Protein backbone atom coordinates (compact mmCIF):
# COMPACT_ATOMS: atom_id res chain seq x y z
CA UNK A 1 0.00 0.00 0.00
CA UNK A 2 1.34 3.40 -0.87
CA UNK A 3 2.11 6.03 1.72
CA UNK A 4 -0.27 8.92 2.42
CA UNK A 5 2.71 11.24 2.41
CA UNK A 6 6.16 10.56 1.12
CA UNK A 7 8.97 13.06 1.29
CA UNK A 8 12.12 12.00 -0.54
CA UNK A 9 15.51 13.63 -0.10
CA UNK A 10 14.19 17.10 0.54
CA UNK A 11 16.64 19.99 0.30
CA UNK A 12 15.97 23.61 1.13
CA UNK A 13 18.19 26.65 0.76
CA UNK A 14 17.43 30.29 1.40
CA UNK A 15 19.25 32.94 -0.59
CA UNK A 16 19.89 36.07 1.49
CA UNK A 17 22.10 39.15 1.63
CA UNK A 18 24.85 37.26 3.39
CA UNK A 19 24.81 34.35 0.95
CA UNK A 20 23.00 31.03 0.88
CA UNK A 21 21.88 29.16 3.98
CA UNK A 22 21.14 25.46 3.78
CA UNK A 23 18.23 24.55 5.99
CA UNK A 24 17.27 21.02 4.95
CA UNK A 25 19.96 18.55 3.90
CA UNK A 26 18.05 15.63 2.41
CA UNK A 27 15.07 14.90 4.63
CA UNK A 28 13.10 11.75 3.86
CA UNK A 29 9.92 10.86 5.71
CA UNK A 30 6.83 8.75 5.06
CA UNK A 31 3.44 8.47 6.66
CA UNK A 32 1.15 5.53 6.05
CA UNK A 33 -2.63 5.45 6.21
CA UNK A 34 -3.96 6.08 9.67
CA UNK A 35 -0.51 6.67 11.07
CA UNK A 36 0.50 9.46 13.47
CA UNK A 37 4.07 10.41 12.71
CA UNK A 38 6.02 12.91 14.80
CA UNK A 39 8.81 15.17 13.61
CA UNK A 40 10.65 16.23 16.74
CA UNK A 41 13.61 18.53 17.24
CA UNK A 42 14.74 21.84 18.69
CA UNK A 43 13.74 25.25 17.40
CA UNK A 44 15.31 26.12 14.08
CA UNK A 45 15.94 22.48 13.14
CA UNK A 46 13.64 22.63 10.10
CA UNK A 47 10.30 21.24 11.28
CA UNK A 48 8.00 24.06 10.19
CA UNK A 49 9.73 24.58 6.85
CA UNK A 50 9.19 20.90 6.09
CA UNK A 51 5.47 21.33 6.76
CA UNK A 52 5.33 24.51 4.67
CA UNK A 53 6.97 22.70 1.76
CA UNK A 54 4.36 19.93 1.91
CA UNK A 55 1.71 22.65 1.77
CA UNK A 56 3.46 24.21 -1.24
CA UNK A 57 3.93 27.49 0.60
CA UNK A 58 7.71 27.87 0.62
CA UNK A 59 7.92 27.14 -3.09
CA UNK A 60 6.10 30.45 -3.61
CA UNK A 61 8.98 32.43 -2.04
CA UNK A 62 11.38 33.77 -4.67
CA UNK A 63 14.41 33.36 -2.40
CA UNK A 64 13.72 29.75 -1.38
CA UNK A 65 15.20 26.84 -3.37
CA UNK A 66 13.37 23.58 -2.80
CA UNK A 67 14.21 20.21 -4.30
CA UNK A 68 13.15 16.64 -3.58
CA UNK A 69 10.24 14.28 -4.09
CA UNK A 70 6.81 14.97 -2.59
CA UNK A 71 3.98 12.48 -2.99
CA UNK A 72 0.48 12.60 -1.56
CA UNK A 73 -1.30 9.26 -1.84
CA UNK A 74 1.03 8.39 -4.67
CA UNK A 75 0.41 11.60 -6.62
CA UNK A 76 3.47 13.70 -7.45
CA UNK A 77 2.87 17.09 -5.84
CA UNK A 78 5.73 18.66 -7.78
CA UNK A 79 3.69 18.25 -10.96
CA UNK A 80 0.81 20.33 -9.63
CA UNK A 81 0.23 23.90 -10.70
CA UNK A 82 0.26 26.50 -7.98
CA UNK A 83 -3.55 26.67 -8.09
CA UNK A 84 -3.95 22.92 -7.85
CA UNK A 85 -1.62 22.86 -4.84
CA UNK A 86 -3.60 25.68 -3.19
CA UNK A 87 -6.74 23.64 -3.81
CA UNK A 88 -5.35 20.83 -1.62
CA UNK A 89 -5.02 23.07 1.41
CA UNK A 90 -8.01 22.74 3.68
CA UNK A 91 -9.32 19.79 1.68
CA UNK A 92 -6.84 16.93 1.20
CA UNK A 93 -4.25 18.46 3.52
CA UNK A 94 -5.29 20.48 6.52
CA UNK A 95 -3.26 22.06 9.25
CA UNK A 96 -3.33 23.13 12.88
CA UNK A 97 -0.89 25.69 14.19
CA UNK A 98 0.51 26.60 17.59
CA UNK A 99 -1.91 29.29 18.69
CA UNK A 100 -5.55 28.42 17.99
CA UNK A 101 -6.90 31.90 18.66
CA UNK A 102 -4.62 33.66 16.22
CA UNK A 103 -5.12 31.02 13.54
CA UNK A 104 -8.85 31.84 13.47
CA UNK A 105 -10.01 35.00 11.72
CA UNK A 106 -10.89 37.54 14.42
CA UNK A 107 -13.58 39.38 12.43
CA UNK A 108 -15.78 36.41 11.48
CA UNK A 109 -17.94 34.22 13.69
CA UNK A 110 -16.99 30.58 14.15
CA UNK A 111 -20.07 29.62 12.11
CA UNK A 112 -19.03 31.78 9.15
CA UNK A 113 -15.52 30.30 9.26
CA UNK A 114 -16.88 26.77 9.33
CA UNK A 115 -19.05 27.54 6.31
CA UNK A 116 -16.02 28.83 4.41
CA UNK A 117 -14.01 25.73 5.27
CA UNK A 118 -16.81 23.37 4.25
CA UNK A 119 -17.36 25.25 0.98
CA UNK A 120 -13.81 24.52 -0.07
CA UNK A 121 -14.96 20.95 -0.64
CA UNK A 122 -18.61 21.75 -1.31
CA UNK A 123 -18.79 25.17 -3.05
CA UNK A 124 -22.57 25.72 -3.09
CA UNK A 125 -23.24 24.59 0.47
CA UNK A 126 -26.00 26.79 1.98
CA UNK A 127 -25.33 28.33 5.37
CA UNK A 128 -28.06 26.36 7.13
CA UNK A 129 -26.61 23.05 5.98
CA UNK A 130 -23.10 24.26 6.86
CA UNK A 131 -24.24 25.12 10.39
CA UNK A 132 -25.75 21.70 10.74
CA UNK A 133 -22.53 19.98 9.72
CA UNK A 134 -20.50 22.33 11.87
CA UNK A 135 -22.71 21.48 14.84
CA UNK A 136 -22.03 17.78 14.36
CA UNK A 137 -18.30 18.45 14.03
CA UNK A 138 -18.30 20.49 17.24
CA UNK A 139 -20.04 17.65 19.05
CA UNK A 140 -17.22 15.36 17.92
CA UNK A 141 -14.79 17.57 19.86
CA UNK A 142 -17.08 17.54 22.90
CA UNK A 143 -18.56 21.00 22.39
CA UNK A 144 -22.23 20.60 23.19
CA UNK A 145 -23.49 24.19 23.24
CA UNK A 146 -22.61 24.44 19.55
CA UNK A 147 -25.28 27.04 18.74
CA UNK A 148 -23.59 29.56 21.05
CA UNK A 149 -20.12 28.68 19.77
CA UNK A 150 -21.14 29.05 16.11
CA UNK A 151 -22.42 32.58 16.83
CA UNK A 152 -19.31 33.58 18.77
CA UNK A 153 -16.17 35.38 17.63
CA UNK A 154 -12.85 33.72 18.51
CA UNK A 155 -11.99 36.33 21.17
CA UNK A 156 -15.20 35.44 23.01
CA UNK A 157 -14.04 31.86 23.53
CA UNK A 158 -11.30 30.43 25.72
CA UNK A 159 -8.04 29.22 24.19
CA UNK A 160 -9.04 25.62 24.86
CA UNK A 161 -12.41 26.11 23.16
CA UNK A 162 -10.76 27.71 20.13
CA UNK A 163 -8.34 24.80 19.98
CA UNK A 164 -11.26 22.37 19.79
CA UNK A 165 -12.85 24.49 17.09
CA UNK A 166 -9.61 24.45 15.10
CA UNK A 167 -9.35 20.67 15.42
CA UNK A 168 -12.95 20.23 14.27
CA UNK A 169 -12.38 22.57 11.30
CA UNK A 170 -9.18 20.79 10.32
CA UNK A 171 -11.01 17.49 10.11
CA UNK A 172 -14.20 18.93 8.54
CA UNK A 173 -13.34 17.97 4.96
CA UNK A 174 -11.96 14.52 5.78
CA UNK A 175 -8.38 15.34 4.80
CA UNK A 176 -6.01 12.53 3.87
CA UNK A 177 -3.31 14.28 5.85
CA UNK A 178 -3.45 16.52 8.90
CA UNK A 179 -0.38 18.58 9.72
CA UNK A 180 -0.26 19.79 13.31
CA UNK A 181 2.62 22.19 13.99
CA UNK A 182 3.23 22.51 17.73
CA UNK A 183 -0.48 22.34 18.44
CA UNK A 184 -1.52 23.83 21.74
CA UNK A 185 1.95 24.94 22.79
CA UNK A 186 0.43 28.34 23.57
CA UNK A 187 -2.17 26.78 25.87
CA UNK A 188 -2.04 25.82 29.52
CA UNK A 189 -0.75 22.32 30.22
CA UNK A 190 -4.06 20.87 31.40
CA UNK A 191 -5.88 22.27 28.36
CA UNK A 192 -3.11 21.09 26.06
CA UNK A 193 -3.30 17.58 27.52
CA UNK A 194 -7.09 17.48 27.08
CA UNK A 195 -7.11 18.74 23.52
CA UNK A 196 -4.27 16.45 22.45
CA UNK A 197 -6.14 13.46 23.80
CA UNK A 198 -9.23 14.60 21.96
CA UNK A 199 -7.33 15.04 18.72
CA UNK A 200 -5.70 11.65 19.21
CA UNK A 201 -9.06 9.89 19.63
CA UNK A 202 -10.60 11.74 16.73
CA UNK A 203 -7.87 10.98 14.17
CA UNK A 204 -7.79 7.40 15.39
CA UNK A 205 -11.53 7.02 14.77
CA UNK A 206 -11.42 8.74 11.37
CA UNK A 207 -8.18 7.03 10.34
CA UNK A 208 -6.59 10.35 9.38
CA UNK A 209 -2.84 10.31 8.86
CA UNK A 210 -1.04 12.97 10.90
CA UNK A 211 2.28 14.75 10.65
CA UNK A 212 2.73 15.91 14.22
CA UNK A 213 5.41 18.54 14.74
CA UNK A 214 6.72 19.20 18.22
CA UNK A 215 9.76 20.08 20.26
CA UNK A 216 8.33 18.28 23.29
CA UNK A 217 9.43 14.66 23.65
CA UNK A 218 6.77 13.87 26.25
CA UNK A 219 3.97 15.08 24.02
CA UNK A 220 5.42 13.12 21.09
CA UNK A 221 5.62 9.95 23.14
CA UNK A 222 1.97 10.25 24.00
CA UNK A 223 0.72 11.12 20.55
CA UNK A 224 2.78 9.41 17.88
CA UNK A 225 3.10 5.90 16.46
CA UNK A 226 6.40 6.66 14.80
CA UNK A 227 9.01 9.31 15.35
CA UNK A 228 11.53 11.15 13.18
CA UNK A 229 14.14 13.10 15.12
CA UNK A 230 15.52 16.09 13.24
CA UNK A 231 18.74 17.94 14.02
CA UNK A 232 19.86 20.91 11.94
CA UNK A 233 17.97 19.86 8.84
CA UNK A 234 18.89 16.17 9.00
CA UNK A 235 16.85 13.22 10.24
CA UNK A 236 19.16 11.60 12.78
CA UNK A 237 16.91 8.80 14.02
CA UNK A 238 13.63 7.21 13.07
CA UNK A 239 11.49 4.36 14.25
CA UNK A 240 8.42 3.28 16.20
CA UNK A 241 7.78 5.46 19.24
CA UNK A 242 8.33 2.67 21.76
CA UNK A 243 11.67 1.68 20.20
CA UNK A 244 12.98 5.25 20.12
CA UNK A 245 12.04 5.96 23.71
CA UNK A 246 13.23 2.63 25.07
CA UNK A 247 16.51 2.55 23.22
CA UNK A 248 17.46 5.87 21.64
CA UNK A 249 20.40 5.09 19.39
CA UNK A 250 21.66 8.43 18.12
CA UNK A 251 23.81 10.69 20.28
CA UNK A 252 21.51 13.63 19.64
CA UNK A 253 18.34 11.74 20.60
CA UNK A 254 20.08 10.50 23.73
CA UNK A 255 21.17 14.02 24.63
CA UNK A 256 17.64 15.33 24.16
CA UNK A 257 16.21 12.65 26.40
CA UNK A 258 18.86 13.15 29.05
CA UNK A 259 17.98 16.85 29.13
CA UNK A 260 14.28 16.35 29.92
CA UNK A 261 13.55 16.79 33.65
CA UNK A 262 11.74 13.76 35.09
CA UNK A 263 8.71 14.02 37.38
CA UNK A 264 10.23 11.16 39.33
CA UNK A 265 13.03 13.54 40.37
CA UNK A 266 16.79 13.09 40.43
CA UNK A 267 17.89 16.71 40.26
CA UNK A 268 18.39 19.05 37.34
CA UNK A 269 19.10 16.99 34.23
CA UNK A 270 22.70 16.55 33.19
CA UNK A 271 22.97 17.14 29.47
CA UNK A 272 25.75 15.00 28.08
CA UNK A 273 27.94 17.02 25.79
CA UNK A 274 29.75 15.73 22.76
CA UNK A 275 27.94 17.69 20.10
CA UNK A 276 30.30 16.42 17.44
CA UNK A 277 28.49 13.07 17.57
CA UNK A 278 25.22 14.84 16.75
CA UNK A 279 26.29 14.69 13.11
CA UNK A 280 26.70 10.89 13.17
CA UNK A 281 24.78 8.85 10.56
CA UNK A 282 21.08 8.22 10.98
CA UNK A 283 19.89 5.46 13.30
CA UNK A 284 16.94 3.45 11.98
CA UNK A 285 14.67 1.26 14.10
CA UNK A 286 12.74 -1.17 11.94
CA UNK A 287 9.11 -2.05 12.51
CA UNK A 288 5.96 -0.11 13.13
CA UNK A 289 5.12 -0.21 9.44
CA UNK A 290 8.42 1.43 8.43
Amino acid at each position, binding site marked *: MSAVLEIRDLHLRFRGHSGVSEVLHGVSLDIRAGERVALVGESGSGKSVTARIVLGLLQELPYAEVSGGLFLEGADLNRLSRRQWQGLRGTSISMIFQDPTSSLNPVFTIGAQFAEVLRRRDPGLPRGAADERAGALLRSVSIHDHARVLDAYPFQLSGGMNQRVVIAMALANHPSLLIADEPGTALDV*TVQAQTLKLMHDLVERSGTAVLFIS*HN*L*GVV*REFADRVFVIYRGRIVERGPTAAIFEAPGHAYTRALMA*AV*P*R*ITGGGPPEPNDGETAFLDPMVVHEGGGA
Partner: protein
Amino acid sequence: MTPLLSLRHVSKTFGSGPRAVRAVRDVSFDVSRGECLAVVGESGSGKTTLANMILGVFGQSSGEIRFDGRALPSRRTLEHRSAIQLVQQNPLSSLNPKRSVGASIRLGLDVFGIGRRSDRWRLVENALEEVGLPGDFRRRAPAALSGGQCQRVAIARALACQPRLVILDEPTSALDVLVQARVLRLLDGLRRTKGLSYVFITHDLSVVRNVADRVAVFRSGELVECAETGAIFENPRADYTRRLIGAVPVITDHELKLRESLSGGLPA
Protein backbone atom coordinates in the same frame (compact mmCIF):
# COMPACT_ATOMS: atom_id res chain seq x y z
CA MET B 1 15.44 31.88 62.53
CA THR B 2 13.07 34.28 60.80
CA PRO B 3 12.35 33.43 57.19
CA LEU B 4 13.99 35.61 54.57
CA LEU B 5 10.69 36.41 52.91
CA SER B 6 7.31 36.19 54.49
CA LEU B 7 3.89 36.98 53.03
CA ARG B 8 0.88 37.31 55.30
CA HIS B 9 -2.66 37.60 53.93
CA VAL B 10 -1.45 39.35 50.82
CA SER B 11 -4.06 40.34 48.24
CA LYS B 12 -3.99 42.37 45.08
CA THR B 13 -7.03 43.69 43.27
CA PHE B 14 -6.75 45.55 39.97
CA GLY B 15 -9.47 48.10 39.29
CA SER B 16 -12.63 48.39 41.30
CA GLY B 17 -16.36 47.76 41.17
CA PRO B 18 -17.83 44.98 39.03
CA ARG B 19 -14.76 44.95 36.75
CA ALA B 20 -12.29 44.42 39.59
CA VAL B 21 -9.79 41.59 39.06
CA ARG B 22 -8.77 39.85 42.26
CA ALA B 23 -5.41 38.70 40.95
CA VAL B 24 -3.99 37.50 44.30
CA ARG B 25 -6.25 36.52 47.18
CA ASP B 26 -5.21 36.26 50.81
CA VAL B 27 -1.92 34.51 50.22
CA SER B 28 0.51 33.58 52.99
CA PHE B 29 3.81 31.72 52.70
CA ASP B 30 7.48 31.93 53.73
CA VAL B 31 10.77 31.48 51.93
CA SER B 32 13.71 30.52 54.14
CA ARG B 33 17.33 31.39 53.61
CA GLY B 34 18.90 29.28 50.88
CA GLU B 35 15.54 27.81 49.92
CA CYS B 36 14.02 27.43 46.46
CA LEU B 37 10.26 27.85 46.57
CA ALA B 38 8.49 27.02 43.34
CA VAL B 39 5.34 28.94 42.49
CA VAL B 40 3.28 26.96 39.99
CA GLY B 41 -0.02 27.67 38.33
CA GLU B 42 -1.58 28.14 34.93
CA SER B 43 -1.72 31.43 33.07
CA GLY B 44 -3.64 34.13 34.88
CA SER B 45 -3.27 32.47 38.28
CA GLY B 46 -1.46 35.51 39.70
CA LYS B 47 2.17 34.40 39.62
CA THR B 48 3.60 37.51 37.98
CA THR B 49 1.41 39.78 40.11
CA LEU B 50 2.91 38.10 43.16
CA ALA B 51 6.43 38.66 41.80
CA ASN B 52 5.69 42.32 41.15
CA MET B 53 4.52 42.86 44.72
CA ILE B 54 7.61 41.20 46.17
CA LEU B 55 9.78 43.34 43.90
CA GLY B 56 7.90 46.50 44.85
CA VAL B 57 6.79 47.25 41.28
CA PHE B 58 3.43 47.98 42.88
CA GLY B 59 2.06 47.59 46.39
CA GLN B 60 -0.31 44.94 47.68
CA SER B 61 -3.95 45.91 48.24
CA SER B 62 -3.84 44.36 51.69
CA GLY B 63 -1.65 42.16 53.82
CA GLU B 64 2.03 42.35 54.68
CA ILE B 65 5.28 41.37 52.97
CA ARG B 66 8.27 41.00 55.30
CA PHE B 67 11.89 40.65 54.25
CA ASP B 68 14.58 39.59 56.69
CA GLY B 69 12.24 40.13 59.62
CA ARG B 70 10.95 43.59 58.72
CA ALA B 71 7.94 44.81 56.77
CA LEU B 72 8.87 45.95 53.28
CA PRO B 73 7.89 49.56 52.71
CA SER B 74 5.93 50.40 49.57
CA ARG B 75 8.78 52.72 48.53
CA ARG B 76 11.78 50.44 48.51
CA THR B 77 15.22 51.52 49.65
CA LEU B 78 18.21 50.94 47.37
CA GLU B 79 19.25 48.19 49.73
CA HIS B 80 15.97 46.33 49.22
CA ARG B 81 16.06 46.87 45.50
CA SER B 82 19.48 45.29 45.18
CA ALA B 83 18.65 42.46 47.61
CA ILE B 84 15.65 41.25 45.59
CA GLN B 85 16.39 40.67 41.91
CA LEU B 86 14.37 39.41 38.97
CA VAL B 87 15.14 37.14 36.03
CA GLN B 88 12.35 37.06 33.44
CA GLN B 89 11.16 34.58 30.87
CA ASN B 90 12.03 36.37 27.70
CA PRO B 91 15.77 36.93 27.85
CA LEU B 92 16.07 39.27 24.91
CA SER B 93 13.30 41.67 25.86
CA SER B 94 14.69 41.95 29.37
CA LEU B 95 17.96 43.46 28.09
CA ASN B 96 18.20 46.94 26.61
CA PRO B 97 18.97 46.33 22.92
CA LYS B 98 20.90 49.62 22.64
CA ARG B 99 23.30 48.81 25.45
CA SER B 100 26.15 46.34 25.39
CA VAL B 101 25.73 43.33 27.63
CA GLY B 102 28.37 44.75 29.98
CA ALA B 103 26.66 48.14 30.24
CA SER B 104 23.39 46.45 31.21
CA ILE B 105 25.13 44.53 33.97
CA ARG B 106 27.13 47.55 35.12
CA LEU B 107 24.02 49.72 35.48
CA GLY B 108 22.98 47.86 38.64
CA LEU B 109 26.46 48.24 40.14
CA ASP B 110 26.38 52.00 39.53
CA VAL B 111 22.83 52.46 40.85
CA PHE B 112 23.41 50.40 43.97
CA GLY B 113 26.99 51.63 44.53
CA ILE B 114 28.45 48.15 44.49
CA GLY B 115 32.27 48.05 44.43
CA ARG B 116 34.66 50.91 43.66
CA ARG B 117 34.03 52.68 40.36
CA SER B 118 37.42 51.65 39.04
CA ASP B 119 36.66 48.06 39.91
CA ARG B 120 33.24 47.70 38.32
CA TRP B 121 34.19 46.42 34.87
CA ARG B 122 36.12 43.68 36.59
CA LEU B 123 33.00 42.85 38.65
CA VAL B 124 30.98 42.74 35.42
CA GLU B 125 33.46 40.28 33.94
CA ASN B 126 33.39 38.18 37.10
CA ALA B 127 29.59 38.02 36.93
CA LEU B 128 29.76 36.85 33.31
CA GLU B 129 32.31 34.19 34.20
CA GLU B 130 30.13 32.96 37.05
CA VAL B 131 27.39 32.15 34.57
CA GLY B 132 29.80 30.38 32.24
CA LEU B 133 30.42 33.15 29.72
CA PRO B 134 33.80 34.67 28.87
CA GLY B 135 34.42 38.09 30.44
CA ASP B 136 34.86 39.77 27.07
CA PHE B 137 31.21 39.01 26.33
CA ARG B 138 30.57 42.35 27.97
CA ARG B 139 31.24 44.09 24.67
CA ARG B 140 28.54 42.17 22.82
CA ALA B 141 25.12 43.48 21.85
CA PRO B 142 22.12 41.48 23.14
CA ALA B 143 20.94 40.85 19.57
CA ALA B 144 24.14 38.90 18.89
CA LEU B 145 23.42 36.33 21.60
CA SER B 146 21.55 33.02 21.49
CA GLY B 147 18.54 32.50 23.79
CA GLY B 148 20.61 30.57 26.30
CA GLN B 149 23.42 33.14 26.32
CA CYS B 150 20.87 35.92 26.81
CA GLN B 151 19.38 34.14 29.79
CA ARG B 152 22.87 33.69 31.26
CA VAL B 153 23.46 37.42 30.88
CA ALA B 154 20.15 38.15 32.61
CA ILE B 155 21.25 35.88 35.48
CA ALA B 156 24.68 37.57 35.61
CA ARG B 157 23.01 40.97 35.77
CA ALA B 158 20.85 39.88 38.69
CA LEU B 159 23.78 38.29 40.54
CA ALA B 160 26.03 41.31 40.07
CA CYS B 161 23.64 43.24 42.32
CA GLN B 162 24.53 40.86 45.18
CA PRO B 163 20.94 39.79 45.84
CA ARG B 164 19.74 37.58 48.67
CA LEU B 165 16.52 36.63 46.92
CA VAL B 166 16.10 36.05 43.19
CA ILE B 167 12.69 35.85 41.60
CA LEU B 168 12.82 33.68 38.50
CA ASP B 169 9.69 34.20 36.40
CA GLU B 170 9.54 31.29 33.91
CA PRO B 171 13.33 31.52 33.43
CA THR B 172 13.64 28.55 31.08
CA SER B 173 10.21 28.39 29.43
CA ALA B 174 11.40 29.97 26.19
CA LEU B 175 14.52 27.81 25.91
CA ASP B 176 15.14 24.56 24.04
CA VAL B 177 15.42 21.52 26.27
CA LEU B 178 19.22 21.14 25.98
CA VAL B 179 19.72 24.80 26.81
CA GLN B 180 17.13 24.62 29.58
CA ALA B 181 19.02 21.75 31.21
CA ARG B 182 22.24 23.77 31.30
CA VAL B 183 20.53 26.88 32.69
CA LEU B 184 18.75 24.82 35.36
CA ARG B 185 22.05 23.33 36.48
CA LEU B 186 23.64 26.74 36.53
CA LEU B 187 20.83 28.20 38.66
CA ASP B 188 20.94 25.25 41.03
CA GLY B 189 24.70 25.52 41.46
CA LEU B 190 24.64 29.28 42.00
CA ARG B 191 21.98 29.01 44.67
CA ARG B 192 24.05 26.48 46.58
CA THR B 193 27.42 28.22 46.30
CA LYS B 194 26.02 31.67 47.08
CA GLY B 195 23.39 30.67 49.61
CA LEU B 196 20.69 32.43 47.59
CA SER B 197 16.95 32.05 47.98
CA TYR B 198 14.76 31.61 44.94
CA VAL B 199 11.12 32.15 44.16
CA PHE B 200 10.97 29.98 41.05
CA ILE B 201 7.84 30.73 39.03
CA THR B 202 6.96 28.14 36.42
CA HIS B 203 4.09 26.20 34.92
CA ASP B 204 6.34 23.17 34.34
CA LEU B 205 5.98 20.62 37.11
CA SER B 206 8.79 18.40 35.88
CA VAL B 207 11.17 21.34 36.30
CA VAL B 208 9.74 22.02 39.76
CA ARG B 209 10.32 18.43 40.82
CA ASN B 210 14.04 18.80 40.19
CA VAL B 211 14.89 22.26 41.44
CA ALA B 212 12.51 23.21 44.26
CA ASP B 213 12.60 22.50 48.00
CA ARG B 214 8.96 23.46 48.42
CA VAL B 215 6.09 24.11 46.05
CA ALA B 216 3.22 26.62 46.22
CA VAL B 217 0.37 25.78 43.84
CA PHE B 218 -1.75 28.71 42.68
CA ARG B 219 -5.12 28.75 41.03
CA SER B 220 -7.12 31.89 40.22
CA GLY B 221 -5.08 33.97 42.66
CA GLU B 222 -5.44 31.53 45.51
CA LEU B 223 -2.83 29.33 47.12
CA VAL B 224 -4.38 25.87 46.90
CA GLU B 225 -1.51 23.90 48.37
CA CYS B 226 1.97 24.58 49.75
CA ALA B 227 4.23 21.71 50.78
CA GLU B 228 7.67 20.16 50.42
CA THR B 229 8.40 19.04 46.88
CA GLY B 230 8.53 15.38 47.86
CA ALA B 231 5.11 15.59 49.49
CA ILE B 232 3.57 17.38 46.50
CA PHE B 233 4.71 14.63 44.16
CA GLU B 234 4.12 11.69 46.47
CA ASN B 235 0.94 12.72 48.19
CA PRO B 236 -0.70 15.77 46.64
CA ARG B 237 -3.61 16.96 48.74
CA ALA B 238 -5.51 19.19 46.34
CA ASP B 239 -7.39 17.73 43.38
CA TYR B 240 -6.08 20.61 41.34
CA THR B 241 -2.47 19.61 42.07
CA ARG B 242 -3.28 16.07 40.99
CA ARG B 243 -4.75 17.39 37.77
CA LEU B 244 -1.67 19.48 37.09
CA ILE B 245 0.58 16.47 37.66
CA GLY B 246 -1.72 14.36 35.49
CA ALA B 247 -1.19 16.73 32.56
CA VAL B 248 2.63 16.62 32.57
CA PRO B 249 4.00 14.98 29.41
CA VAL B 250 6.49 12.30 30.44
CA ILE B 251 9.06 10.23 28.60
CA THR B 252 9.61 7.09 30.70
CA ASP B 253 7.35 4.26 31.90
CA HIS B 254 8.54 4.91 35.42
CA GLU B 255 7.19 8.46 35.25
CA LEU B 256 4.00 7.28 33.60
CA LYS B 257 3.34 4.92 36.51
CA LEU B 258 3.89 7.67 39.04
CA ARG B 259 1.67 10.03 37.11
CA GLU B 260 -1.14 7.52 36.77
CA SER B 261 -0.98 6.60 40.44
CA LEU B 262 -1.25 10.28 41.43
CA SER B 263 -3.87 11.42 38.98
CA GLY B 264 -5.75 8.13 38.73
CA GLY B 265 -9.49 8.48 38.44
CA LEU B 266 -9.44 12.19 37.75
CA PRO B 267 -10.27 13.55 34.33
CA ALA B 268 -7.10 14.89 32.67
